[in-house]
């Protein structure tokens, strides 16, 4: 009997013809794949940065009269997880600002800029407020604000005691803003009047009160301060909580008893978690979702243009935004970066035009000595700065390094890219290449996400590419970063900035109630940073926010006030 030979050990001779045929096919396939993969854009024109440093007007989208009806679906890149106000994330806050109100809130709408934090009484539970002295705020509450008609609150009227309870809970939980935790006291003068006292004069206090985290709670809705149960989501906001399907969607519906007459115009507001950028673009393209999670940071121009091409029922809100404001910094309290000449050399080594071309698709603005924010209020552009190093000059950079004694170069082993969830690797790698041009050799230290946070909190880095959060006031954005006492704040001064002149300016601006004088102080602090280069900011990028044409009065905002944004929107059809 013929002996059995398993298939894979039997010898199979390949003929020369078969070998030539196979090789030719493989070669053709490789060439074809290469040609396809290397196909470039038809447009070979090199993108240019925007030389115009003025702030463009955001695209207006209002114009029709408000009407009742319709629904809106937003997407966010994360699930709400929990609607416990003490533990909510950004997505959760978008919902909680819809179901709850704050004492005061910001104005929203298509004619309000992203950075305009205009405090108004209309949509807050306070009808007006007074400031009898620099440390006292007295709020008079609207008499007709009622909670949602759900047990155990059952639609009762909001009182001053609810406000007191809320702010004491925020303060005692230790999870609220510093300003709230630094309150000296909060008390109910009567059923409709609340008094706050601060430990010291603090100009941004009102902005903190308006913060999207400080939603007013009903004591009986929670379980002894625990609001983790979905049945606790009872507020006085324009929308009422209806349902939450974890990982899928949160749905809220119109509150028929909302204290702002006529609002909200929409019947329902939904939020869906769609983490993947292409998936959210697909959902917007097909109309499954009205507005993607770019509602607070924008889409890259090319992706936005693709959406607008594919779906002609979309229009776009365009604006300059830094995304999450990133900046270059280093340990400035020790060599080599304690020498301002070295820091100045770093700033001169940054090629911002290249940044705009490679990372912002050719649409960017070169920032000044602060993150691009509050452009119409406090922000100084490079042309407004007296002495700065916001230009690309390798020769000058090398001279400065030589003068500082680092002509042979600098080796940095711990370049931490603290991106907090964003993909900042393209920027990180570009920085490495740009610094190499002047002999600063950076080795990227990029641990896993939470290890990176741990390292950041402990200040374990030499050089960093990192970000800060949006905020509603200059002080809350910058004090923790620029003041020498800022280390203790999680987002604070881990760079070792200890500049008495800067400390004095930061301390003065937070207690100067005169707007003009305060602006002058803030400008001086930017002039100082421009000279000292403690932090070197990235470019502002043009972002697009596609949304349906029939949606009116959509005004994206730099703060996560989802409810505020949605309550003034309506749909034409």
């Amino acid at each position, binding site marked *: 009997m013929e002996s059995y030979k398993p298939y894979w050990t039997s010898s199979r001779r390949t003929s020369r013809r078969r070998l030539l045929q196979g090789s030719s096919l493989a070669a053709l396939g490789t060439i074809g794949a290469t040609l396809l993969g290397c196909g470039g854009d038809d447009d070979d024109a090199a993108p240019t940065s925007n030389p115009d440093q003025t702030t463009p007007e955001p695209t207006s989208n209002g114009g029709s009269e408000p009407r009742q009806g319709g629904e809106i679906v937003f*997407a966010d890149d994360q699930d709400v*997880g929990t609607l416990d106000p003490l533990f909510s994330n950004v997505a959760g806050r978008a919902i909680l600002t819809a179901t709850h109100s704050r004492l005061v809130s910001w104005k929203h709408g298509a004619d309000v800029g992203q950075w305009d934090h205009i405090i108004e009484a209309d949509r807050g539970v306070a009808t007006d407020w007074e400031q009898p002295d620099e440390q006292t705020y007295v709020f008079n509450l609207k008499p007709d604000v009622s909670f949602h008609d759900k047990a155990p609150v059952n639609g009762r009227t909001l009182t001053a005691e609810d406000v007191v309870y809320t702010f004491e809970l925020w303060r005692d939980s230790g999870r609220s803003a510093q300003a709230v935790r630094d309150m000296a006291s909060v008390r109910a003068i009567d059923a409709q009047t609340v008094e706050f006292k601060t430990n010291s004069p603090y100009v941004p206090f009102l902005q903190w009160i308006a913060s999207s985290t400080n939603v007013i709670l009903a004591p009986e809705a929670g379980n002894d301060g625990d609001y983790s149960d979905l049945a606790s989501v009872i507020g006085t906001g324009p929308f009422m909580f209806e349902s939450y399907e*974890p990982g899928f969607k949160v749905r809220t519906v119109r509150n028929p008893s909302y204290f702002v007459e006529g609002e909200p115009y929409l019947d329902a507001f939904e939020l869906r978690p*769609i983490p993947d950028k292409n998936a959210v673009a697909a959902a917007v393209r097909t109309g499954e979702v009205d507005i993607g999670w770019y509602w607070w940071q924008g889409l890259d121009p090319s992706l936005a243009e693709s959406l607008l091409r594919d779906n002609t029922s979309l229009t776009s809100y365009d604006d300059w935004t830094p995304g999450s404001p990133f900046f270059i910094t280093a340990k400035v309290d020790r060599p080599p970066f304690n020498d301002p000449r070295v820091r100045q050399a770093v700033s001169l080594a940054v090629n911002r035009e290249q940044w705009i071309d490679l990372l912002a698709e050719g649409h960017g603005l070169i920032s000044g000595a602060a993150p691009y924010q509050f452009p119409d209020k406090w922000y100084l552009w490079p042309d407004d700065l007296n002495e700065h190093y916001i230009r690309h000059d390798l020769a000058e950079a090398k001279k400065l390094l030589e003068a500082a004694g680092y002509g042979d170069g600098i080796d940095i082993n711990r370049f931490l890219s603290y991106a907090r969830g964003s993909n900042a690797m393209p920027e990180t790698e570009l920085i490495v290449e740009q610094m190499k041009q002047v002999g600063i050799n950076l080795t990227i230290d990029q641990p896993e996400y939470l290890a990176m*946070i741990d390292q950041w909190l402990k200040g374990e880095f030499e050089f960093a590419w990192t970000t800060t959060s949006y905020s509603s006031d200059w002080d809350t954005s910058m004090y923790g970063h620029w003041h020498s006492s800022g280390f203790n704040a999680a987002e604070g001064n881990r760079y070792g900035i200890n500049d008495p002149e800067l400390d004095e300016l930061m301390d003065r601006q937070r207690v100067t109630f005169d707007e003009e004088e305060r602006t002058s102080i803030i400008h001086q602090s930017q002039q100082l940073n421009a000279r000292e280069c403690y932090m070197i900011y990235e470019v502002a990028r043009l972002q697009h926010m596609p949304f349906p044409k029939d949606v009116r009065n959509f005004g994206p905002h730099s703060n996560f006030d989802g409810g505020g944004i949605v309550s003034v929107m309506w749909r034409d059809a």
Partner: protein
Amino acid sequence: MFCRLRTPVILATSVEVDAMAQYAMQRILLALPTLLLVSFAVYSIVRLLPGDAVDTFLAQNNLRYEGDRERLEKDLGLDKPIVTGYAEWTADAVRLDFGTSFTLRRPVQDLLLERLAPTITLGVLAVFFGVIVGVPVGLVAATGQDGPMDYGVRGFAILGLAIPNFWIATVVVIVLSKELGWSPAGKFVPLGVDPLASIRSLLIPAAILGLATAAALARFTRTQALEVLKQDYVRTARAKGLRERVVIMRHATRNALIPVVTVIGLQLPILIGGSVIMETIFSIPGIGSLTVSAINTRDYPVIQMINIVFALTVITANLATDLCYPILDPRIRP
């Protein structure tokens, strides 16, 4: 041997059934120390990693590094030594209390029950797709060795294994939305709401996820089938004049499938563990995405429970695979 292979194996004796039951019971009992070991390993290793849930709270809420850290560690029970904490966790686990998620503020078992169904459904559908595509295709390739079908299948297998599933998923999402005006992402329907709609909403991600399984099974089945087709008993069956279809289906397939069953059995845990990409792209609220966020935030109770579930899945899949062998080949007994 040839006659025994033709004997229907379903007619097992009561002795054999008792032996299998005893074997299954032994394996189940062995699972308990395995789970204990896995739980302790996960409990201690994850706490040795840099960063913890407190860091998440500090960073998210811009809290005070000194002052708030100690308080939060105490609140979350992170100030206890590992052994003490593990003993307390085990005592609670015995009472089916697996703790509360640090970040989601809900009982861990509730979270898992919500998220398990989509992931298991996705995994099972992916395996099902892999089997119904990969096995027949592998058999066809084997029977038509070196023919056009064989080359086609081998090409499919290489592409299916080489092309990353996240790339395929992204292309599918983009193409469907551009060409058909339909987005498959975000369409998930919970099983409890409408089981059929739920399965329909998972078909596309399951097909993509199962593609690599289909490719691997096609290759493996082909190889095994070729091996079996060269056996003496197959030659005898042909010599007897049996139709080729009978030879393949009745005599060759079952023997070729024995090693293939092993591969299939191991695919389910792999697919459940690898579902995170599909869950992210298609916005499916499953265990995969929960795992990633739990690891990123060091949500220890959730991480602990998920790993127990994964371990249980692997143990169950292995046991089910082992119990299938006697059905396919009566010569194999536990």
